[in-house]
C-alpha cells in the first residue's frame, strides 16, 4: 500500500489532545475505563445533591448543526452536573444561517478558549475539521452517517448494567443500516468487546461490503439476546428513492412486533422512535425494552466522556472515587 507522508510537514506537536471522534480510535482498555468512570458517576447521581465540582472553571461548547433532543440535552446536563460552564450554539439562528463556514465558526468559538467542543454535524468528518482548527478537545456527537461514538458507549453501558456482561452476547441490529451512524459505531464497539453482531434489513439498506453477518430475513433476530432497532427515516421514502416500496411494506416485513420476539429478548432503540413503523408500541413499552435505560445511561456516559477527554486515564477515576469516599 502506498502511504503519503504528511507527518514531516507538520509543525512540532504540542501535548497530545484527547478527542473522541470515532469508536475506531478506541481500544478495549479505553472502553473499560470510560464505562468504569460512567459507573462512578451513576453512583454519584443517586445522592441528593447531584452536582460534582469536577470540571469547575471549564468551558464546554455544544455546537449542534442538526436537531437533537437526547444527545444535546444529555451533553448539556452532563457538563452542568460536572460544574462546567456551558455554551450552546445551534446552526439555526446563528451565523451559520448567514453562510459562515464550519471552519470560521470553529475559529470564532475557539477564540473563547473552550476546553471541550461537542459537535453534531450532518457531514462526515466535521469533528475532525473542528479538531484541526481549534485547540479544544473535540467530542463527536454524530457526524453524518459516519459515527456517533457516545451512543455506542451508552449502549455498551446499558447492556452491561442490564445483562451483566458484554462478551459473548449476540445483538441483531435491524433496519436502515446503510444510513445509520449508530449502526456503524455499534458494530465497531461490539467487535471491540466481543459481542456478535447480525445486521438485518431490506436489501438496499444493507451496505454491500461491511465485514459483518448480514441478512434480509427478519427470522434471524430469533437467535439474538438483544434486538437493536434502528429508526426508519421518513426521508428514505422520498419519491424516486425506492429503497423500499412503502413504509407499510417495511413495517410488515421488518417491524419489531411482540410476535417476532422470544420471551425475555431485550429490545433497544437509539430514538427518536417511529412507533408503528420500525417498532410496535407494545414492544417499546414492554418490560423487556431498555429504551429509557439508554437515555439514563446517556447522561452518565457523556459525563464520563467529558471527564475523560479533559483529565484522562484511570488515575483520575481512582482519585475521584477516593474523593467520593472521603
Amino acid at each position: 500500500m502506498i502511504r503519503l507522508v504528511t507527518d514531516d510537514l507538520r509543525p512540532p506537536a504540542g501535548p497530545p489532545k484527547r478527542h473522541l471522534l470515532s469508536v475506531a480510535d478506541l481500544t478495549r482498555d479505553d472502553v473499560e475505563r470510560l464505562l468504569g468512570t460512567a459507573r462512578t458517576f451513576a453512583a454519584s447521581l443517586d445522592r441528593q445533591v447531584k452536582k460534582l465540582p469536577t470540571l469547575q472553571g471549564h468551558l464546554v461548547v455544544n455546537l449542534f448543526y442538526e436537531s437533537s433532543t437526547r444527545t444535546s440535552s444529555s451533553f448539556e446536563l452532563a457538563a452542568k452536573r460536572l460544574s462546567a460552564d456551558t455554551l450552546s450554539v445551534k446552526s439555526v439562528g446563528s451565523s451559520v444561517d448567514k453562510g459562515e463556514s464550519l471552519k470560521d465558526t470553529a475559529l470564532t468559538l475557539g477564540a473563547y478558549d473552550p476546553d471541550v467542543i461537542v459537535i453534531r454535524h450532518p457531514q462526515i468528518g466535521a469533528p475532525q475539521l473542528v479538531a484541526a482548527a481549534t485547540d479544544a478537545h473535540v467530542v463527536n456527537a454524530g457526524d453524518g452517517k459516519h459515527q456517533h461514538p457516545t451512543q455506542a458507549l451508552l449502549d455498551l453501558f446499558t447492556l452491561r448494567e442490564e445483562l451483566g456482561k458484554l462478551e459473548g452476547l449476540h445483538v441483531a441490529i435491524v433496519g436502515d443500516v446503510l444510513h445509520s451512524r449508530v449502526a456503524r459505531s455499534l458494530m465497531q464497539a461490539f467487535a471491540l468487546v466481543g459481542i456478535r453482531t447480525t445486521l438485518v434489513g431490506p436489501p438496499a439498506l444493507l451496505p454491500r461490503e461491511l465485514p459483518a453477518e448480514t441478512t434480509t430475513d427478519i427470522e434471524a433476530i430469533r437467535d439474538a439476546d438483544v434486538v437493536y432497532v434502528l429508526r426508519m427515516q421518513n426521508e428514505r421514502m422520498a419519491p424516486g428513492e425506492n429503497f423500499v416500496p412503502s413504509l407499510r411494506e417495511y413495517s410488515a416485513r421488518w417491524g419489531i412486533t411482540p410476535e417476532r420476539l422470544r420471551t425475555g429478548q431485550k429490545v433497544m432503540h437509539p430514538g427518536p422512535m417511529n412507533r408503528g413503523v420500525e417498532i410496535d408500541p407494545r414492544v417499546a413499552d414492554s418490560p423487556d425494552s431498555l429504551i429509557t435505560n439508554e437515555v439514563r445511561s446517556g447522561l452518565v456516559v457523556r459525563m464520563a466522556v467529558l471527564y475523560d477527554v479533559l483529565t484522562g486515564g484511570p488515575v483520575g477515576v481512582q482519585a475521584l472515587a477516593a474523593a467520593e469516599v472521603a
Partner: protein
Amino acid sequence: MLWQKELPGADLVIRGARVLDRTEGIDATLEVRIDGGVIAQIGAQVDANEHRVVDAKGLVLAPAFVDPHVHLRTPGREDEETIASGTAAAAAGGFCAILAMPNTDPVVDSAATLGSLVETARSEAAIPTGFLAAITRGQRGEELTEMGELAESGAVAFSDDGVPVASAGLMRRALQYASITDRPLALHCEEPTLSRGGHIHEGRVAAELGFAGYPSVAESVAVERDLALAGYERGRIHVLHLSAAESVEALARARDAGIAASGEATPHHLVLTDDAVRSLDPNVKMNPPLRAERDRVALLDAVRDGTIEAIATDHAPHAAHEKDVPFEAAPFGVTGLETAFASLYSHLVKPGLLPLETLLERMSAGPARIFGLDRPRVATGARANLVLLELDREWTVGEQPFRSRSGNSWLLGSRLQGAVRLTLAGGAVVHE
C-alpha cells in the same frame, strides 16, 4: 490547433544526458544542439556553436509531456486558475502541450468564447495550449453545439467533461455529427442515476465510513453504452479518466473488435485506492472516485499493455476555502500538473511496476496520437519539445509554492522522487 505566447526560440546544447525516445528508437548518451528552437543536431559530440551548454550528466532527456485533460478554469474562475498560471504549472511539470476542458463559465460552446480563449492563449500561454469545445450547448445534454464551426475555430475535440451526456439518443447524434469534423469525442462516462449522491467508491471504505457510494458500475455501464454506440456509428471516442476494472475490460474488448476507441488514466487513480479516503481529506475527493485495489491493478495493466494509451492529470484546481470543508461539502477534483511525472516515477517506475520508457510514451506520444497533435520527439528538424529529468532528486510536494493558483494536490506533504530540471516547449525554454 495549439497556441502559445511568442517566446524566443532557444539556442542550447544539452550534453551528457541519456536521451530516451522509444518511438524514435533512441536510448543512448548523446548530445543535442537546438538552434532557434529547432533540434539541429544529435550525436555523440556536437558543436556548441557558442550556444549555452547545459551539463546534463546523469539526467534523462525525453520528449516533453502532453496532457490531454486540464481544467484551466478560464473563463469564470480565474481565482482558481488562469491560462498563464495553468500553463506555468504545466511547464514546471515537464509538459510541452496541454488541452483545456470546456466546462468553464460560460461553457466553451460557441466560436466566440473559443476565439477569446485562443486570443488569451496567444498572449499568456507559457506552453502550446489547445481547447476542447462542448458536445452540447451549456453542457446541458439537450442540443448539439455547432461542431463544424467550432472545429474550424480550432477546437481539438469535443467533450462535456464534468457531466455525462445522459441521453443515449443524443450521444448517437453527437457521434454522427462529429464525424464531419474528424475530431474525437472525449467522454466523461457516468450513469447519473447510479452515481447519484455518491461521494466515494461504493466499497468497503464507503460502507465503513458511511459515505454514499458511487459504484464502479455507474462508470462501466456508460462506457459500454458509448462503445456500443461508437461501434454502431463508426465514430471515434476517447474515454476520459478511466477508474473501474470493468470499464478497462470493455475498452479492451471494443478495441479488439476494431472500434476506434482510446482511453486515459490519471496519476491519482494509478497510485491511490479508496483506502486513502479514510483520512477524510477533501484533497482525495474527485470524480470518478478512487476505487479498489483490483481497479488500480487493472488500470496499471492497461497502461502497461497499451489498452490505455494516455496518462492525463485531470488537473482540477479549486479555491482553498472551497476544499477546507467537510469531505461531503467539498467539490470534486485535485491538481496534478506539477506532480504527474514524479508521482508516477516514485510509485510505479521505481518499484518496478512500469518501465520508464512506457511511462514516457503514455505521457507524450500516446496522448498526442489520440488528439492528432504533433508528437514531441527527439529528431533533427523537429521543434524542441523536450524535458530534462533528474530521476534521483527527492522533493516534498508543497514545500515550494505551486505555480498553479490552487494547492488542492492529493500529494500535499508527500515525498517524491524525480524532478523536472528543464522544459522546452514550442522551441522555447519555459521552465528551468
